[in-house]
């Protein structure tokens, strides 16, 4: 199957309490999805590029996540490391009728959607 960007429904919005993040297993990769208290959603790669800290366990606020292991700070909208060069992969994500929808590149079509 040719890889292309594809919408994946991750589940209901209430999986992620406001102000927190959760890690989702897409089979081929894992992503961290954050639900801010202002109601915005962001999605990034799951692990911190520094020492693989679980970003979804980080503190979030003002479009920033702080990795729980060594407090590296990343901009959630761009993935950019605060004060450094590296960048997290980010994924477009939105809510449609209370379901979280992420746009993922290269994910095989889910079998159960037929």
């Amino acid at each position, binding site marked *: 199957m040719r890889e292309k960007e594809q919408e994946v*429904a991750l589940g209901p919005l209430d999986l992620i*309490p406001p*102000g927190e993040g959760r*890690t989702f297993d897409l089979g081929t990769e894992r992503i961290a999805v954050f639900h801010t208290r202002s109601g915005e959603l962001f999605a990034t790669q799951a692990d911190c590029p520094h*020492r693989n800290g679980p970003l979804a*366990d980080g503190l979030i606020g003002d479009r920033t996540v702080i990795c729980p*292991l060594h407090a590296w700070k990343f901009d959630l909208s761009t993935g950019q490391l605060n*004060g450094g*060069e590296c960048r997290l992969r980010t994924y477009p994500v939105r809510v449609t009728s209370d379901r979280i929808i992420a746009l993922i590149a290269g994910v095989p079509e889910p079998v*159960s959607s037929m």
Partner: protein
Amino acid sequence: MKKNLVVIGNGMAGARAVEEILARGGDDLFNITMFGDEPYGNYNRILLSNVLNGSQGEGEIFLNPIEWYRDNNITLHVGVYAESVLRKSRCVLGADGSIEPYDKLIIATGSRSHVPSIDGVTMPDGQDKPGIFVFRTLDDCREIAEYAKGCRGRAAIIGGGLLGLEAARGLQSHGVQVDVIHRSQHLMNQQLDEQAGAILKSTMEGMNIGVLLGKNTTAVLGEDRVTGIRFADGSILACDMVVMAAGIKPNIEIASRCGLQVQRAIVVDNQMRSVTDSDIYVVGECAQHRGHVYGLVAPLWEQAKVLADHITGHNPGASYHGSKVATKLKVMGVEMAAMGIIEPVEERDEIVQFTEPKKGRYKKLIIRDGRLVGGILLGDISKAAYLMQAFDRGTPLPEERLSLLFDIGAPSKKVTVEEMPADMQVCNCNGVTKGAIVGCVKAGKRSPKAVMEGTRAGLGCGSCKSLVTDIVEFACGGELEEDPSVHYYVPGIPLTKPDLIKAICERGLKSVSAVFQTLAGGKEDPASKPGLASLLSTLWAGEYVKEPDARFINERVHANIQRDGTFSVVPQMAGGVTSPAELRRIADVAEKYQVPMVKLTGGQRIDLLGVKKDDLPHIWRDLGIPSGHAYGKSYRTCKSCVGTDFCRFGVGDSTSLAIRIEHTFKGIDTPHKVKMATAGCPRNCSEAMVKDIGAVAVEGGKWEIYIGGAAGAHVRKGDLLCVVENQDDVLKFSARFMQYYRENAKYLERTYGFVERIGIDKIRAIVVEDSEGIAARLDAAIRASIEAYEDPWEAAYTEPRPTEFSSLLPVLQ
């Protein structure tokens, strides 16, 4: 019209040259483009040894983060190697295919580690043999640390110079046995004489670093990874990794390919231009000026200034005349500074010398015509700043030579700051003079923090910060402005702790989100959240509205996050007392959940390490023991000795007291960890005098209460708060002090800092003598927090929040 300026090299020299150019209005003269081989902004390479030994994080050593380039309109080709310079068509070709035309070019390619020709460095397939490293870049640093942690064996550092010794000490902190291999007959033979080298050798050996001298390494052994090295004399040293620190080699290939005159490095004139092409400037370790190639940072700053003066036309007469070289060794536990010549060379040269080898001290100065031309200071560098200055400036030395080596009635500090000449360099990392600091104050910056940001003084290794502060104070004429943000309780809300408490209480703010809404216009600073949650829990006790997202993950899932994202579980074990049945249950749970490690903690508790987040509530339920609170900024544990029950020396029942303390204070939020201990007699087996709060039984049924002790990163004996008659009073005064600490300490301020800041006399007056009449209120406030306690573990498994403990959610279609 603006001209194109291209800079090849984004290290300390290239970036510094550009900074100096911008400071001279270069932004109006040039469109600036830079090529940087490494995938980062510019960082302070001098501090890499701190990164290796873990005393600084990678993020802390950046001088120019990526945003700096954007803010200054610089096009940065990051991670792009510049392949060639076409001088006829005046352009630079990047390895990524980019073509950058230039009017003026700066080559600042620096140098790389010199890898001596040794057999077995590469594998038969041409790949580097695993276990061989150079020590030059941030990436090298990271790879060395990773490999060292993985092998935990033996490391050989080839090269006993400045870099080799710094690498050796840094590697030690990763748990490997380190040997330094040096070709010469004494360590640091570029900077030290034989006697100093021998003293340094015993100092290094005293720190458990092996030193092998006069050893010429001829081969690296091992089939598919390093297993040892062989020397020219045929002997072999077994080791698991090799770090090459045998000097540097200027990166001059790009210059020689385009026809510039190159000897050991690229030959430049007094304006730092290539002698072959006056449109090409060269700066830093790749430049050769009057036969000298400098591998230190201070000459590079001087070169960058001359280059910038000349290229911008700011001072067309600017001219570089070489640098005098002085070095400091930055190795933990070793103090060393060296400058100029090592041995006298002329008959008139006078030597002033002091030796105390057993204490590792050695001082030697070489004086010519009353001026310092060389010096070595080992073991005591208290006079280094003065001597380096006298050496650099060639100022006449005082007749009393003894005062050069020791402080004998030195003039007071204030006079020194005042008398200091304006061009004296204060910050040796960033090359900032007293004049520049004073100028910055005159331009309106009136706090040390603002001046440091404005001039970059003090932002390198940080050792000159107190001197910078003194100069700022002097330049302000005593009207020092304090930077208000250092007094905020949390960075995201511009209020001091008393003002913040007032605002919270007046407006009845009971949740962290309400505080942000009301006091910060809804802008949620994530770094401020845990401090606010702690404060709200202190102020409102049971009425505090818990919001898990405001808590650090440990306090969200009531367990301590580990390096691999798993957690540690420490069940409550008050006083460190357990029972066979409890131990059996803990053992059963550890087996059932295949806990990878069961370990005793420093606080006399049992730690189950490596638990998956998903298993936490199940483990807690199966244990049926409340949380031991080993994860939060809160009361942690109370250690104790066996006290009077069994010990033949015990004079007080320390065990029962410790159990009462644990049941009283469990889970109480505090500004930082609070660790306690009780000791049944003054032998102090439970180390109560170095705890945040400690109680020591003394004869006559009394207890001494100590506060502000520490035995972690900082070691401090606690101050005696008071002596009380019974256990009830130990609890009463401990609780009252704890509440005073909760209300008045800055977030993340440990009691040792707090007690020193407030002063034990004032604390004793308030807590013991009730000098401010607040004792009853403090007692009531902490009682409310104690009564509001609930076991977070039980709460979590009886009423779990959805997905709280899911480390990975499956995608449900």
